[in-house]
Every structure is written in C-alpha cells, then in structure tokens.
C-alpha cells in the first residue's frame, strides 16, 4: 500500500491488512512535533556515543569524524540526549517559528 490511505481501494488492501515493508514507518516524520532541538558543541564532545544510546526515536546520527548530530526528520525534542550527555555539550534550543 504505497498510496495514501484515503485513496486506497478495498481491492488494494493487502491480505489481512498485512504490511510487507519492514521499517516503513520511517516515511513518517516525527520531527514536526518538536518545539526544541538539541545543538552539539563539538569542541567539548568526547565522541563517547552516550547521546546516541539514549535517544528513544532513534534520531541521532553519527557524522564522519565520530561526532553526533540530530536527525531533524525524527527528533521530537525530548531533551534526553542533552540531559545525559556526559560532558554537558548538548544544549536544547527552541525551534524557530
């Protein structure tokens, strides 16, 4: 079912509502939900990866060089990464309108 739901006909519904594409939820962007986002101060980052470990989405990606950043498509702005960062190098910044 690649069509939007409201255009899908009954003939196009998969057998028993089956979903064949694992991880297809990635098409849904939860990034729209956030009102703040994390910002990394790389000079203080020790590249330990704890922030990556604690993100529930997950919405933290590793950049070349071993530093981390948020994935704006999915970060919901919970602030866990900032709270748990071992050096305190992540700060939460309000989303701009």
């Amino acid at each position, binding site marked *: 079912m690649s069509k939007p739901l409201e255009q899908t006909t009954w003939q196009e519904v998969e057998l028993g509502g089956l979903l064949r594409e694992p*991880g297809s939820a990635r098409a849904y962007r939860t990034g729209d939900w956030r009102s703040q986002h994390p910002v990394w101060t790389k000079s203080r980052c020790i590249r330990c990866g704890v922030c990556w470990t604690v993100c529930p989405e997950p919405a933290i990606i590793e950049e070349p060089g071993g530093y981390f950043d948020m994935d704006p498509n*999915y970060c919901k702005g919970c602030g866990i990464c900032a709270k748990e960062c*071992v050096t305190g190098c992540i700060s939460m910044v309000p989303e701009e309108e």
Partner: protein
Amino acid sequence: MEKFGYAQSQKYDTYASRLMPREEFFTSGHRSCQGCGEALAVRWVCKAIGKDAIIAHATGCMEIVSSGLPQTAWMHPWIHVAFENTAAVASGIDAALKILARKGKLAGAPPKVVAMGGDGGTSDIGLQALSGAMERGHNFTYICWDNEAYMNTGIQRSSSTPFGAMTTTSPPGKESIGQSTWKKDMVAIAVAHNIPYVATACPSYPFDLYFKVKKAIEMPGPAYIHVLSVCPTGWRSATDLSVRLGRLAVETAVFPLYEVEHGRYHLTVEAPRLRPVKDYLKPQGRFRHLREPELDFIQRMIRARYELLLEKCRQPYGEFATVPFTPEPEQEVA
C-alpha cells in the same frame, strides 16, 4: 559528579556505546510521546534479540505507536493479535517452528520467539496466558514493558502501579491517597514457574538490559524480563528525565536490577549506598500529592523489600534447581 553519574553506574566505561550494534530494528517514525522510556526499551531489546527472531506483541502503547496501517516501525517479523494473549500466540509460534523444523520445512535453525506486552497485558489481563506458556516450557522470551499503568488507554491503574501513584482510575481525593495497593511482584510470579531465566532491566542501563536479553534469548526454555519503562506522559515527569528517572529507580532500590538464573538470585547493578526514595518520587507529578507519612511508609517498604532481595541473593542455593530429565535405559530382567 552528577553529570558523570551515567558512566559510573555502569560496569562498562563511557565508551561502551561505541561497541554496541548500530543496526536499528525498531525504527524512527514511530509515534511514541516525546521522551518515551518504553520506546527506548524496545529499541534496545530489539537490538539484543538480533535479526533472527519473531516477535508477538500485545495491544498497548508500543503496538499502537508502531503499527498503524500502512506503516510499521518493526524490522522483525511481527504479529499483534490482541491484548491478553501474547504469550499464547508465542506458544503457537514456538510449536509451529518445532514441528516445521522436525518435518524439514525450515531452512536453518528456527528463529527465536519473543513475546512483548505492557504491564497491564502481562500482570493483569495476560497473566493466565503467560503463566500457561511458562508452565508448558515453551522456548520463548517474554518481555514486559512496565510503565506502571494502562498508558495506551489513558493512564488507568494496573496491578503494577506503585503504591500512592495517581492514575485516572486511582485518583487521590478526600478518601484516597491514590493507588492503595502495593505493586504486584511479577518477577516473583515468573520465578515461581521454575523457569531457567528471569530478570529485571531498565533502558537507563542499556548494556545491562542488552546482555540480559541476549542471555534470555539463548537460554532454552522460557525466560522472562521485566523492564521498567519510564513514561513521562503517565508519570507526569519532564520528558528529558526519562533516563535519569530509571537510574533513580535503581539507585533508590525502588527497582533493583537483578537476575534469577535457574533459581539463583544475583544483583547485576549494585548501588553502594541507597539514595532516599524521595529523590525518585519528587520529579514525578503522579506522586505529588503524597505527604510525609506515605513517603515514609514507601521508604520503609522499599528498604524492607530490598533487604529481602539481598537475602535471596546471599542464599547458597537457588530457590529451585532445574535438573534435566534423562530417562534410564530399560534394564533387561534376566
């Protein structure tokens, strides 16, 4: 000190994260609330069970946030049937895999079977199905996401809701302090089934959780893991505290991390000095109405129960012993 607390309470050093598998099996795009500890738990449990597994999931938050047509956040073969029957569905999968393997209809080793459900789906409505499946000895691992209430339906109390907590069906009032019963000890119930592996875990200790799940999965027979999962929505706590609160639950002995392997208790994360329980309760709005006498009672109960647990951990023998049954060859009578 506070900042480095994360690394300190681990057996592994700060850089352990680097050694963990990067592949995600519970993908982004799931619709949990911000800062959902349960989603974080799912993420790590799914990493630990690895590719070669089938998941049966109960109705509840983690099902609803992940599997609305036409999208799924699951990378595993995954089935949701109903609220209270996940362990039974898993027993069916286990049985089918056994017979298909015997008949040579499976290519390779049978996949692992994992059942998952919330505290309501586990300790209340699904308890019978779970008890049956554990008693029958199916080869499966059951994971309980314990966010201490029926969150999916709007924060109603469950038997796993802690004493004093406010939920929408255990509201504090003139005649009530909130939840008036002590949290059901699901772990003890699982242990009473004499299964090979039972453990508590929390995603605030992701490596502890990861290796427990790995152990459970590899263990033949039933295994049960009870995962404390912080729910900022239901606990009325700040979204950024979800990992911190899990750690506080462990450091206050509200939720000790231990395992019971073949009946033998073992504390996996030791707190050198317990923090006062208040440290854990205060940041949560669901306990805001509690006064000193209740807080004191909770502190004493937690302490007493923790002592009991330590006592069990000190026992030289397990609570039960699992002895494999090997029939004697029949003797010819001369």
